[in-house]
């Protein structure tokens, strides 16, 4: 059954491979600089590598937007996105799986009653606007640099051709890696909270997490898409969009790949932050729009007047229409999935508002007076909590999100020592060991208990972004490892235990 549910994600992956690989090798193949077979092989291999090695960053951001927590829900969300992409592509829109999946996730949030993280959403949408502009700027700069370089070095036409060929292959591989890293979130992101896979250990050195296995399958689907269908798309990308020479093709692909990489690489992200530089958020982008941006940047740099504003208009329109269509489709399909096929598209989640939750929320600066009437109440579905909150007070979406996060009952504390010791400092590990066997109802309680035991777990204002992110990641790991599966929770497990 699990495999059936993954099918929609694989379909989305296939369409990504068929469409987006063309953005990376389309120009190289169309200008006959690289043979299709070689391009497809390189693209497939590096998409898989990028997805498995660096796919986590952008996935995290999508996860913030909405954690689809039941596999049938993930199936439906991915299906809605896939259908929206196929439909819009037929209408000739420059669409991306990214916009579709974001719309579909928001659709799931609406359906389930879970609040949408508006700050994540606005960051994502802003990145869509920024990415083609950034790609265009990079392309323009690269154009001038390449022109200057070629004028200086005077390479023989044949040698230039050979170097160019090599560069197209290398940059294509980099582009495919970046595409895999950046876009795997679209394909498999919604399945992450409901992943059916367990970690695989190969000796002491190699460990492939459940998430990475999921990414591997998604990436393989992308690879199949590249092999089976991208050839046709490549023909149109290479010839219709804009007449590119091999050198300008290189510039376009390089700019696009850089932008995808900037928005996907965890390593680069933290390196930039730690050096006090602005770092782009890790967000899945549209490679098609990055390519169009790069080509327009090139056109501006060449002083061409013939910029087709209709193309720009179509892109801007897709930022709005595609998510809306995917969102509506997602809502409709979820409704049918739940009521017609009787599948659980939203996992049962318990929320309990206790005095401690209210105190915690007040400490976070939330007005809790309106919540007093709900003190002691439990809810078994996000929609119930949302309705209760609506009745009691005026909470905006971000406040709702904070309340949902704080009130979610999780039962943590099983085997805290199972967390891989090598990833922790000694102090962090000792603190974990001391909590062994204790139970916590809420995630934030476990975090606070750890912070009380040692400053090593304590969030500090002065921490570098890297440190903050690391601590957050470790805490997520602790939550995951120590989470008591719903079936094993004793009747009294909702009684929280003070440390």
């Amino acid at each position, binding site marked *: 059954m699990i495999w059936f549910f993954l099918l929609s994600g694989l379909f989305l992956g296939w369409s990504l491979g068929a469409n987006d690989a063309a953005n990376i090798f389309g120009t190289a193949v169309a*200008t*006959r*600089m690289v043979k299709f077979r070689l391009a497809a092989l390189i693209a497939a291999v590096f998409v898989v590598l990028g997805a498995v090695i660096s796919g986590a960053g952008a996935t995290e951001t999508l996860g913030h937007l909405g954690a689809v927590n039941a596999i049938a829900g993930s199936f439906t969300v991915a299906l809605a996105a896939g259908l929206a992409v196929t439909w819009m592509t037929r209408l000739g829109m420059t669409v991306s799986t990214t916009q579709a999946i974001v719309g579909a996730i928001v659709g799931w949030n609406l359906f389930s009653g879970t609040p949408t993280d508006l700050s994540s959403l606005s960051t994502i949408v802003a990145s869509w606007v920024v990415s083609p502009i950034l790609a265009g700027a990079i392309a323009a700069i690269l*154009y001038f640099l*390449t*022109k200057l370089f*070629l*004028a200086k070095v*005077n*390479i*023989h*036409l*044949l*040698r230039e*051709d*050979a170097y160019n060929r*090599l560069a197209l292959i290398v940059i294509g591989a980099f582009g495919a890696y970046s595409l895999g890293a950046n876009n795997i979130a679209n394909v498999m992101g919604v399945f992450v909270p409901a992943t059916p896979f367990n970690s695989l250990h190969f000796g002491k050195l190699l460990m492939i997490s459940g998430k990475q296995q999921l990414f591997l399958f998604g990436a393989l689907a992308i690879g199949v898409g590249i092999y089976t269908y991208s050839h046709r798309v490549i023909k149109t990308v290479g010839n219709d969009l804009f007449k590119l*020479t*091999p*050198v*300008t093709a290189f510039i376009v692909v390089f700019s696009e790949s850089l932008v995808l990489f900037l928005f996907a690489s965890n390593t680069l992200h933290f390196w930039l932050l730690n050096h006090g530089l602005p770092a782009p958020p890790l967000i899945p982008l549209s490679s098609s729009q990055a390519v169009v941006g790069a080509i327009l940047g090139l056109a501006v740099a*060449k002083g061409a007047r013939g910029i087709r504003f209709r193309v720009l208009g179509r892109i801007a329109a897709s930022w709005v229409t595609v998510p809306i269509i995917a969102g509506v489709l997602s809502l409709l399909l979820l409704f049918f999935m739940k009521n017609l096929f009787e599948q659980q598209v939203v996992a049962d989640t318990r929320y309990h508002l206790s005095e401690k939750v209210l105190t915690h929320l007040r400490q976070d600066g939330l007005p809790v007076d309106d919540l007093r009437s709900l003190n002691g109440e439990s809810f078994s579905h996000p929609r119930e909590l949302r309705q209760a909150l609506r009745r009691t007070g005026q909470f905006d979406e971000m406040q709702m999100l904070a309340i949902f996060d704080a009130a979610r009952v999780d039962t943590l504390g099983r085997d805290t020592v199972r967390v891989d010791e090598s990833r922790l400092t000694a102090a962090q590990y000792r603190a974990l060991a001391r909590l062994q066997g204790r139970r916590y109802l809420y995630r934030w309680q476990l975090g606070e208990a750890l912070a009380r035991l040692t400053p090593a777990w304590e969030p500090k204002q002065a921490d570098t972004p890297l440190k903050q992110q690391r601590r957050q990641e470790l805490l997520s790991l602790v939550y995951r490892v120590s989470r008591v599966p719903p079936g094993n929770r004793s009747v009294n497990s909702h009684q929280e235990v003070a440390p």
Partner: protein
Amino acid sequence: MPLLFRKTQEMETMIDEYLDRVVQGGLLFKEGLRYYLDGDLAAFEDRLADIDALESESDTIRRRIESQLYTQTLIPESRGDVLGIIEHTDEVLNITAETLMVLSVESPEIPEALRQMIRELGEVSVTCMDELITTIRAYFRDVERVRDGTTRVLFYEKEADKIADRIKRKIFKDDSITGDLSRKLHLRDCVANIENISDTAEEVSDRLSIAAIKRTM
């Protein structure tokens, strides 16, 4: 790296060798014409034999270039231009060989009054040809210099035209050139043959101008 670019290196060398043959062809033509005008027919026939051998060598190289450019799918964007340029350059070489061959077969008697002018026409034509080859090399290595090169080719072609014009007028208008109309027409054809060298060079140069524009980013 060297292994990776071996084919490219081979092709570069082959194109250079081909262009070397064309330059040599020009020099042989100049020498051959000089010996013919000086009446040293043995030396003239030697040069004719040399230019014939050179032409067939260059044909072999040209065919190899053409087939390898296609089979190895090198320079896909500029392949058509490069092939066009090389084929038309070959025509220039062919004309030099043919012109000497016509002199050998038809043995026109060149009046003393025309000899210096014809020698001059031959020299200017060969200079035009040399400039063309330099420009072709620039197209491959330093495309910015193509414009200067084509300007020079054009200049020498015009010079050759003027000289040829003067010779033709002299053939038909000057009393010192004796003989019937058929002799005059024969002389005119010989001059037209030489003039054809720079005309064809100009055609190649026009192609080069366009190819160079396509090559600049």
